[in-house]
């Protein structure tokens, strides 16, 4: 084990115990009543989402608060927020696999599910924002009767390629990581139709040495490709801003600053999910206090890197000497949206300082609160970066404030509801912790110590 000293999975007695504990959840769900209540509540927000989308299709993007000079609004800031959330899931799964961090084996599954659902929420926003969303396929280079091709000098095209690749790769990585556990559920299931469904999904997995070897090689290669993919996807997102002419989006730090902020936000959301799942399902032996401690450290570390971004993005604006850059900086600090800047600083820089202390990281409720603050703080940051760059640009006569309309908010609430709805289905139907990887880590741990 690369982590120090004591055992992470000391509390799990045997492979069979780990297997039973996890496969029991999809097969004999322990809290059906609470699940249905949560399902109904999130289901209501799925309806809110549906109504918001239908209304948007009916009336057009005018139902949102966007105007000139702020044509982006929630559609793009929430897109950046959602896709950023996904990146931490990929890094926990892929990066920590490559650097042999065995503790990651009990949190990678739900982190990957979070990635898949967050990317789904993200990729819907730019399409809805198109104005004529039903023509979104015009972005795809296919031979057409108009005899035109898309322009690949445009970051919109980069995003199409980056986000669709990221979605496909995340889904495949999630799925091939899941196959051995689907086989496990198939083997534990008693009812025939349940066995058949999981059997088909497990693709006939038999766990032979040759299967495992090829699976491992493929999984590692995918992991190795997923890490640079994350960096490229979110760098592409930051270039979406940087290619524009607006002030406030041009520090050379942007790609790194965006990627780190995304990972920071994602670690915070993984922390929220880890704490919720282990509390609800009593999984403390697998998602241990050590995991929360490590997640706390990761939130702190990536948060400090993001704070460096805040500092140098501001320094860059001041040092450029450009009056518009400086003007945007002053708008951020003291303008109409100063609340979003200071909320960002308070949540993402000040609040996380408590995580320096182990006693604080070990307090579950405190860690949960800080993670929730960071999740909100990163949302405020994306909003701040976007709106302050736009609402007062070069032409003073067109300065105008942006305020999200009811339909902006309802769509946002709807996407959160849809995300949670999908997550509930995941928790109910799929092993939420990777059974075989926990068993593998247990074996390594016991062989070493």
């Amino acid at each position, binding site marked *: 084990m690369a982590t120090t000293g004591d055992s992470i999975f000391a509390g799990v007695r*045997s*492979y*069979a115990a780990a*297997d*039973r504990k996890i496969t029991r959840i999809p097969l004999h769900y322990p809290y059906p009543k609470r699940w249905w209540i949560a399902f109904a509540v999130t289901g209501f927000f799925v309806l809110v989402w549906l109504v918001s989308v239908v209304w948007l299709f009916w009336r057009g993007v005018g139902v949102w608060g966007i105007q000139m000079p702020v044509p982006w609004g929630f559609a793009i800031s929430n897109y950046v927020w959602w896709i950023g959330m996904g990146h931490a899931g990929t890094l926990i799964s892929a990066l920590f696999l490559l650097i042999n961090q065995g503790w990651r084996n009990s949190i990678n599954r739900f982190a990957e599910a979070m990635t898949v659902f967050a990317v789904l929420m993200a990729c819907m926003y730019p399409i809805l924002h198109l104005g004529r969303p039903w023509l979104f396929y015009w972005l795809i*280079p296919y031979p057409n009767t108009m*005899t*035109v*091709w*898309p*322009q*690949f*000098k445009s970051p919109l095209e*980069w995003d199409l*390629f*980056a986000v669709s*690749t990221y979605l*496909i*790769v995340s889904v*495949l*990585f999630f799925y*091939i990581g899941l196959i*051995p556990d689907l*086989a*496990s559920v*198939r*083997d*534990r299931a008693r009812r025939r139709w349940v066995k058949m469904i999981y*059997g*088909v999904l497990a*693709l*006939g997995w*038999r*766990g*032979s*040495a*040759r*299967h*495992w*070897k*090829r*699976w*491992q*090689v*493929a999984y590692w*290669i*995918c992991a190795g*490709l997923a890490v*640079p*993919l994350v960096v*490229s*996807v979110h*760098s*592409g997102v930051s*270039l979406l801003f940087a290619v524009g002419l607006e002030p406030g989006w041009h520090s050379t730090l942007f790609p790194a600053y965006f990627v780190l902020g995304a990972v920071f936000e994602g670690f915070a959301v993984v922390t929220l999910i880890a704490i919720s799942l282990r509390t609800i399902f009593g999984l403390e032996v697998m998602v241990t206090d050590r995991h929360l401690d490590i997640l706390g450290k990761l939130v702190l570390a990536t948060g400090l890197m993001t704070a460096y971004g805040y500092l140098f993005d501001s320094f860059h604006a001041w040092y450029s000497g450009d009056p518009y850059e400086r003007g945007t900086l002053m708008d951020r600090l003291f303008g109409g949206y100063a609340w979003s800047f200071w909320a960002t600083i308070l949540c993402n820089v000040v609040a996380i300082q408590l995580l320096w202390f182990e006693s604080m990281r070990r307090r579950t409720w405190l860690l949960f609160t800080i993670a929730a603050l960071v999740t909100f703080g990163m949302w405020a940051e994306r909003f701040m970066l976007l709106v302050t760059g736009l609402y007062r640009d070069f032409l003073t006569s067109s300065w105008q404030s942006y305020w999200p309309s009811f339909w902006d908010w309802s769509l946002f609430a709807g996407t959160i509801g849809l995300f949670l709805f999908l997550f509930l289905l995941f928790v109910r139907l799929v092993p939420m912790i990777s059974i*075989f990887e926990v*068993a*593998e880590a247990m*074996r*390594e741990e016991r062989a070493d110590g």
Partner: protein
Amino acid sequence: MAEWTDDGACLLAHFDNADDLLRAVTRLREEGYRLLEGYTPFPVDGLAEALHFEERRLPRIALMGAVFGGAGGMLMLWYLNAYDFPINVGGRPLDAWAAFALPAFEMLVLFAVLSVIGAMLWFNGLPRLHHPLFDARGFERVSSDRFLLAVGRADPLFDAERSGRLLEELGAVDLEMLAP
């Protein structure tokens, strides 16, 4: 030399831990058995090596996918924007490779991942709805806490009596002969 075939004609020995399985595989290889296969709940370090099984094709296939996706992507973007439908945007170069690099990289990743996962499933003979092994007694415990060793009946050294005794000596807790 005969290769392991996944036809289910084998003697299945159950072990209740990975170390016993590894020891049995090593011993049987020493005895000269070649048609061996292990079944485990999780990837056991060193098992593939003990079986002298190597997988060299997958990394190469991934590389081919990456080259195809990356170079093909770059070529496609050049064809679309510099050759077939050139648009002069502020006098910037038409073959804007720097701008094409990001989408071409995404295509590199996409094709590498698709080809390596496709090849992994293909070589593993998946998806497959049924397999004779699923009828074996207690095979469902492979996904939980059992470690199985299969000795192919086509192995020249195979002898139901002798091989069975050897496996029991090596700590097998259960034996079953499977007909194809």
